[in-house]
């Protein structure tokens, strides 16, 4: 089984988000970039397939040279090949176009992305790829088992879970549940050495138009001070929620 895992580099979840150049550019100062958490759950699931079913894993990232650290981490975790499409990932349509053009030329049985990246939260690249490659896609997966070329999948729906099955090839977007938080791998020394020596294949980007452009950013406005309510006077809380906030 040939698996492609598409990963993006995002600010670590604990990062403070700031902007520079008159609020038009994300401030990378002091920010650590990591594999997008939703992508990492998928990558770890792929490594389990490798351990159990001899799958071969290729990780792909659309990014400039500064994102190679996440590709090396992916190798250290267990990916076999790493590909970087040399471009600034400006919007989802652009990223999907770059990935699609690579994926079209290689026949993968399973393509994994994250449900969404935690920076731009678009969650649309996998849907775009499905349409481009004419392959079925399942969004927001919480479980994936594959046997004899057939996938059994669980996906999140609002208020529950839906169970599906589908023959490969297939695209899924993953999240926690594919594997647990505690299953995420910390690279061992052997993995780190392998990753250090591995040659990352760099591919030049295609000429693709963006369909959206972020022209400015703003931070949420400061909210009003918290109102402290005495634990002995919960009636006050109920009255405030009823009359002031009008939520009960």
């Amino acid at each position: 089984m040939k698996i492609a895992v598409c990963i993006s580099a995002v600010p670590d979840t604990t990062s403070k988000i700031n902007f520079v150049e008159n609020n038009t550019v994300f401030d990378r100062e002091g920010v650590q970039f990591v594999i997008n958490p939703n992508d990492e759950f998928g990558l770890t699931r792929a490594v389990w397939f490798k351990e159990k079913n001899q799958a071969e894993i290729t990780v792909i990232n659309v990014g400039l040279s500064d994102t190679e650290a996440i590709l090396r981490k992916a190798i250290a975790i267990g990916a076999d090949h790493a590909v970087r499409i040399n471009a600034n990932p400006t919007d989802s349509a652009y990223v999907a176009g770059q990935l699609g053009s690579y994926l079209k030329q290689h026949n993968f049985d399973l393509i994994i992305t994250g449900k969404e990246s935690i920076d731009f939260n678009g969650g649309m690249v996998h849907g775009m790829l499905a349409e481009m490659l004419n392959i079925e896609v399942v969004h927001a997966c919480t479980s994936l088992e594959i046997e004899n070329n057939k996938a059994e999948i669980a996906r999140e729906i609002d208020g529950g879970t839906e169970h599906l099955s589908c023959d490969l090839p297939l695209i899924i977007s993953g999240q926690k549940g594919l594997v647990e938080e505690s299953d995420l791998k910390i690279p061992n020394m052997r993995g780190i050495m392998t990753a250090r020596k591995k040659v990352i294949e760099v591919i030049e980007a295609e000429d693709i138009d963006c369909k959206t452009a972020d022209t400015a950013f703003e931070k949420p406005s400061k909210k009003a001070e918290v109102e402290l309510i005495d634990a002995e006077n919960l009636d006050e809380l109920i009255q405030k929620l009823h009359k002031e906030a009008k939520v009960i």
Partner: protein
Amino acid sequence: MGILIVLESEKGQLKSNSGELLSYGKALGNFMATDVFALSINCSAQSSVEKYGVSKAIEVHSEHLQSFNAKNYADCVAEVSRKLNCDIIVVSSSTNAKYMSGILAQKLQASYTNNIVDLPIEKSPFTVKRSVYSNKAFAHTELNAAVKILGLTKNSFGQTLEQTETKTESLEVTTSSSSALEIKGQDTLEGQVSIADADVVVSGGRGLKGPENWNMIEDLAEVLGAATACSKPVSDMGWRPHSEHVGQTGKPVASNLYIAIGISGAIQHLAGVSSSKVKVVINTDAEAPFVKAADYAVIGDAFEVVPQLIEKLKAFKIQNG
């Protein structure tokens, strides 16, 4: 020119987010000075559509669209939008809407932006405000393709009732049922409110000390008609299922009222719940980050405060019908 609002339904009933989608679509129609259509699939929507001022309802009835299939639904929406010559498509931020809209965007070569929180900032260049960095910031985003898909964040715009006379038209679509994806079944929370649909969410953290103490969270949720949720450590420790984990890597919460009990408020958690309108914190630690981020805070022991609150809310409910 025209705006197509894509309504969602379940078992022939419109979903609860429809009022907000219709209100947004109507206001967007005024802003853009163009026609507005409300599309429902295998569901009659007229009585809801006319309450929110949208005068054109489009119904598609097809046995091929009985259960949700993202590709088939995208085909249907694409076909309807072309027939009606709509260049703006308004969708919700539900899991299914997000599933469908990436496919739809590629199909129509459209600019698609979701997590939108308000009417467009500008008509030309068409610019919207959307939340990014998991609610830690907003971006002003230009959509420059001819067709634009706008995904609205729940509870960002609200509902505006405006009675009108609505004309309903049925449209035929050519959508087939072909799909390699086979639905085996669904597990849904019968009789319980989902986090996505809930007006009120009651959430517990490590401060509750163990899963055996969750009955008071459930009791409080029951009094309020709320969904229950939890913090990341709680789901990681297996006290509660992952489906209840809210925060940056869990589910986002955009309820009217969010009550956090024994949750200190890690930055990832605060980001995930920041779209909630009113936040109440019950915590022993007055210095917990969530206290500063809340609207109302009760500093005290959850094991004393919550049972009292449940009793007082029950009394309040009886008084206020």
